[in-house]
């Protein structure tokens, strides 16, 4: 119980990361690969958040007297995650845009068939 309680987020984060990597590795469809990237990204973000997470912690704002800074949630990972999410969205948008253009050019999204550049 205590293990799950203290490590649940890490387990979940690494689970997401591994699922994402697996999807990227085994799927041929570009859209699915992009979904895999997105899952990977989410996993990493969850991981970052859980680094600073404190069970039953408070917001890191000295809003009233007597708040113990030790019981606050670390704010830095949250700031990082915000940035990381924005970057992830940019990559995702670009990837989807490219996927559309790729489909127009090749008529397929199967990455095994899109192999003009090799060796």
């Amino acid at each position, binding site marked *: 119980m205590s293990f799950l309680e203290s490590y649940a987020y890490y387990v979940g984060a690494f689970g997401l990361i591994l699922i994402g*990597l697996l999807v*990227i*590795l*085994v*799927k*041929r469809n570009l859209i699915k*690969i992009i979904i895999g990237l997105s899952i990977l990204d989410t996993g990493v973000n969850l991981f970052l958040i859980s680094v600073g997470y404190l069970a039953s912690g408070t917001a890191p704002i000295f809003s009233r007297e007597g708040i113990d800074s030790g019981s606050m949630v670390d704010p830095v990972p949250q700031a990082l995650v915000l940035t990381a999410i924005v970057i992830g969205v940019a990559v995702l948008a670009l990837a989807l845009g490219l996927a559309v253009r790729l489909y127009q050019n090749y008529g397929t999204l199967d*990455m*095994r068939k899109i*192999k*003009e*550049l*090799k*060796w």
Partner: protein
Amino acid sequence: MTVELLLGVALGGALLTYVLGKISPGLRNAFALLNALALVVMISLLYGQSFERALPLGFLGLELSVRMNMLSWFFAVTILGIGLLSVIYSLVYMRNKERLDYYYATLLFINASMLGTVVAGDLLSFFVFWEMMSWSTYLLISLRGGSKAIFAGIKYIVMSLIGSLTMLVAIVSLYVSFDTLSITELAGHVQSTTMGQALFVLVLFSVTFVIINALWPFHTWLPDAHAEAVSPFSAILSAVLVRKGLYGLYLLMYAMLGFSMLGKLAWGALSYSNVLAWIGAITIVFAAFRALMQNDSKRILAWSTVGQGGYMVLGVSVATNLGMAGGTFHILNHCIYIALLFFVAGAIEYRTGGIRDLDSLGGLIKRMPVAFVGGLVGICGLIGVPLTNGFVSKWLIYKSLVLEGRPFLAFAAFLGTWGTILYGYKFIHNIFLGQLPDRFRDVKGIPFTMAVPIVILTVLIFLFGVLPGIPLSVVDQVGTYLGFESLNVSIWGIPSETGTLNVVNLLAALAVAGFIVWLVLRAIGRSVSVDQDDTYAAGAAIPSGKYHYTVGFYSPLYRIVGPYVRDFVDAFFLKIAGWTGSVCGVTRKIYTGFVGNYVMYIILFLAALIFVQIAWSPW
């Protein structure tokens, strides 16, 4: 007169030639000629001077310097002299060809960088000039275009790059150990180095110099390059560029390592000098047989360049003052007659429309007498017929080998000379003697400016053959500079107890013999001169068409020795190149084109890093 100015004029002249060519071809030719002439005048003014001076600009904290001494002067004179003659020869030979600005500028640039290698006072500037020489030569070898010339160029540059990379390692290894690259300072330090390092440096340097001097087994670039380059440039290649390898060996063996170190690097008979001498001997014999089998006028000369390099190395590696003088003198002599022969072959090519195949030439003696005389004298020099310069240097080499008790090496040298006689005769006969093919009936003689270098070199061959004292006094100073005992040189040769050479006696003996032959002929009776056709047909009707066959010269000999003198080293190198190609073809297959594989590589790399850490924790 300073060396810096000399180098500046040489390099600047090369660039200026290119610029002037864009203005007017005539101006360019005049300037190139003037520049080459000025360099020859300047180097003659530097005769006998000896100094070393730092250049104003250093390189990565190293001081660069130039120097002048008898060794540098000797090589510089051959470079600039042949350079001048080559430019004169090119004036007509290269006329009406494409890319002349490029040709003249690169030719002068090559001369300038060769000059740089011999006047460099430290190994870094030596290397820089060496590399400039390599790439500029590569840029000129393929000038003619066509697949053969291009193949020759790539073959040359790859081998030359191997050489320069090994040399770079050797030079840097010296620098790391002694923190200086000045040749004179290194000479002091190297004496005290360990055997291991001395051997390391020696082997690496030797690879470079053996490659550029085209000794077996690294000769394979030379026949292609020399045959495919344009003839005036072939002359430069054969006469001087190849001999930069010997200059390097001189520096390495005598100016830097010195006798004591060379003496220490020996395990029984397996000493450095011995190995070098045997490489020289193999080169002589192998090249002589290969030359016999060629049917291309320039290829014969190219193979003879390989072989003659062997003689020089023999002389040098014997390391007595007599052998040294022989080797050094042979460099000069070879430079004279091989340039002459390439000029002759080029003239034939020029007048017959690019024909180099010996089977289809013949009978040009009456059409091109100047070329015939030049060719004959050149071949005599090459063989070493008395009263030509080649005789003197070969005699010195034989003598030193015999005196040192090296009968097998001497035999190899003799064997090479017999081969030389055979292929020399083939060269002369197939081009100038025999029946004149119909299509060459109207061939004209050599144009004047092409004849000038030929005549000059012909005269030089006789001059140095009859009065060997003139060049030998310089050669002797080179020897003394390198630490050899001085030879007692007189204008007629070398009168000393170890090996007397007196051309006066020879002259007298020859005159007497000639007189006797003449008397005998006189006594037997009168001879009638008959036409060549009559000789052949014995008075019967003369057949039409070609009746005087000169194809398949020495074919019985080929049948006997042919299987043994294949150029298997060349074949081996080409195999290696082929293997490299297939390895490359396999290697590129890692990049499969499927992005899943690529991501797999990333994950495997990460996994391997972590696995190795957990399993062995090596870091």
